[in-house]
């Protein structure tokens, strides 16, 4: 294979793996503390929307004169906050109201889809949005000359941040007092309450982090990716991220590898389409979903989830 083709594929893989990695970290924070979070999809979508709207509304704000990307960074912040709020709602519903965690997650997914679509029309009066003039610029990039012009990998800020967050998650989960609490909360919550430590606080905090990470994944899609928001644009990435989490056995570093694998499958799919392979686009688009199914079949039985997953005190 020509080097440029390989580089192009690698670039697409990194771009597609980033939201999956962030989504799977979101899942790890939630499930390690004992809360099932199938609302990652909705939290991503909400983050994508909040990030886009914030950045777009502040595009011409005077305070950002001279700081070219200030509005984008505030958008990122808004996405994280929006995701965290949804995470807290999920925690409140499941812990305080003892709502079934899957029911609550499903409701939040529907709510996110409805609210973003409704608000999009309310603000812009259309089903899609205009493109932002620019997205978050690459921190550094690596370019190779190919036969159809230069091909490069752009290492964008959130891409780098997501890998750092993966390492941070690893250290926090396995090396800090908070990580010990989180694991206890997911494995045997009575341990915490019998010592006078709060399971609820642990779960609320972890759900806020989980939501924030999913929101960040959404910000990546709009502010570092295509620069615009479309209805339902996450199209299942939040669920695929859960498969990535399971594939990584609820551990951050293996999840990084799993996210790259899923990103590669998605990249291949797009790559084959652009090559003009004689396979209908719809068939290629099924690939990531099929891979998710294969992953679930292969690993579900053997991977051991946190023992108290889904339980309420």
């Amino acid at each position: 294979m020509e080097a440029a083709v390989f580089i192009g594929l690698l670039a697409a893989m990194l771009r597609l793996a980033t939201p999956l990695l962030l989504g799977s970290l979101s899942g790890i924070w939630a499930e390690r503390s004992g809360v099932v979070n199938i609302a990652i999809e909705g939290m991503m979508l909400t983050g994508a929307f909040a990030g886009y709207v914030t950045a777009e509304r502040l595009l011409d704000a005077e305070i950002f004169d001279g700081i070219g990307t200030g509005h984008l960074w505030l958008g990122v912040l808004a996405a994280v906050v929006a995701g965290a709020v949804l995470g807290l709602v999920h925690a409140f519903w499941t812990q305080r109201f003892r709502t079934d965690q899957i029911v609550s997650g499903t409701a939040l997914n529907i709510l996110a889809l409805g609210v973003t679509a409704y608000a999009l029309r309310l603000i812009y009066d259309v089903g899609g949005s205009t493109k932002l003039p620019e997205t978050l610029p690459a921190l550094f990039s690596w370019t190779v000359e190919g036969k159809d012009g230069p091909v490069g990998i752009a290492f964008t800020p959130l891409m780098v941040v997501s890998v750092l967050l993966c390492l941070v998650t690893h250290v926090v989960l396995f090396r800090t007092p908070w990580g010990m609490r989180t694991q206890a909360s997911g494995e045997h919550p009575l341990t915490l309450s019998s010592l006078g430590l709060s399971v609820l606080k642990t779960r609320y905090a972890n759900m806020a982090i989980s939501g924030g990470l999913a929101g960040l994944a959404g910000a990546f899609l709009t502010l570092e990716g295509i620069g615009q928001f479309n209805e339902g644009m996450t199209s299942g990435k939040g669920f695929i991220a859960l498969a990535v989490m399971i594939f990584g056995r609820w551990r951050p570093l293996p999840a990084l590898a799993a996210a790259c694998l899923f990103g590669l499958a998605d990249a291949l799919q797009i790559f084959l389409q652009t090559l003009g392979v004689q396979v209908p686009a719809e068939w290629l688009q099924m690939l990531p979903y099929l891979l998710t199914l294969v992953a679930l079949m292969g690993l579900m039985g053997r991977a051991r989830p946190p023992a108290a997953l889904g339980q309420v005190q």
Partner: protein
Amino acid sequence: MKVFLSLAWSLLAVLAALLTGGVVLALSGYDVGEALGALFKGAFGTPNALAETLVNTTPLLLAALAVALGLRAGLFNIGVEGQFLMGGLGAVVAGYALPSLPWGLHVIVVLVAGMLAGAGWAAIPAWMKARFGAHEVITTIMFNYIAFRLVGWLVRVPLHGPGSIPQTRYVVEGARLPVLWADTRLHAGLIVALAVAAGLWWLLWHTPWGVAIRAVGLNAEASEYAGIRVVRTVVTSLALSGGLAGLAGAVQLAGVDHRLVEEGFSAGYGYDSIAVSLLGANHPFAIVPAALLFASLRSGASLMQIEADVSSQIISVLQALVILFVAAEAGLRRERELKAARKATAAAPPAAPPSSGAGLAASAGSTGQGQEA
């Protein structure tokens, strides 16, 4: 009796959800009175509006019965949307590829074809759950996305009918459900749906199979212990749930659409049906008024969009709020009952450790809408 009491509580939760929706509308700067007026008029204001509401009730009711059957067996079938689509696919093929059947028989064949298609589509995730323990929530969602792509391609290429619009041929006259009310679109599917509701109630509470389904949904380990074939019950329940979803699609196709378009046929009926089923406490009879409520929201929304300029997307918001409020109310009620039961047995605390819960990767019957903890 208990069902109706719980329905009364659910109604309060619905009111709270609608109130919240009203606040959202007001905050958006709309005239709430005007919007709700248009919503009501659009749902019940004219004979035709009423008929359209009932037309919308039919697929919602059938799809919600599919969700309810799954939840009774402890399965969260989020794949109803995709199974609905596959049901439409099965129905349309049977409806135009078999042109020579007598009228009454043909429409039955069409409905059965749709049911089988939906059941078959749900049987794959059911098998994945039974064989590999793959959780149905994620797998059925994946099957939704796959169904959209698959049907999209089928309609665009091999089943593309005459003309340039990507859609299949129309089913023959004899494969369509008869119209019940002249000059409206109200068709006999409503009767089918009501009959299925009664049938499901009979199945669940008056047959041994129904006992097995409910037992597995409440406590899979105890069911296995008592001699029930848990895996078989899980697989057949999910397949039958898919069959009902497929029937919903077939009824919609044979009664309203008459051909399959590239996208938009399922129109969110599958997702909305989750809210309908939860609102109806997964009880076949209570689901009927719940479906009517959601159908009226749906048919009223278009007039609300035209007259009050409110985006019809507000309906999804309302539905999500209904699920959240109803589920919160149910959760609080369960907590009250649990507390009462604990106090009653406080004198003799059970010596059992806490049982394992409803994890994403737990093998069977892990989605506990009403599951015992």
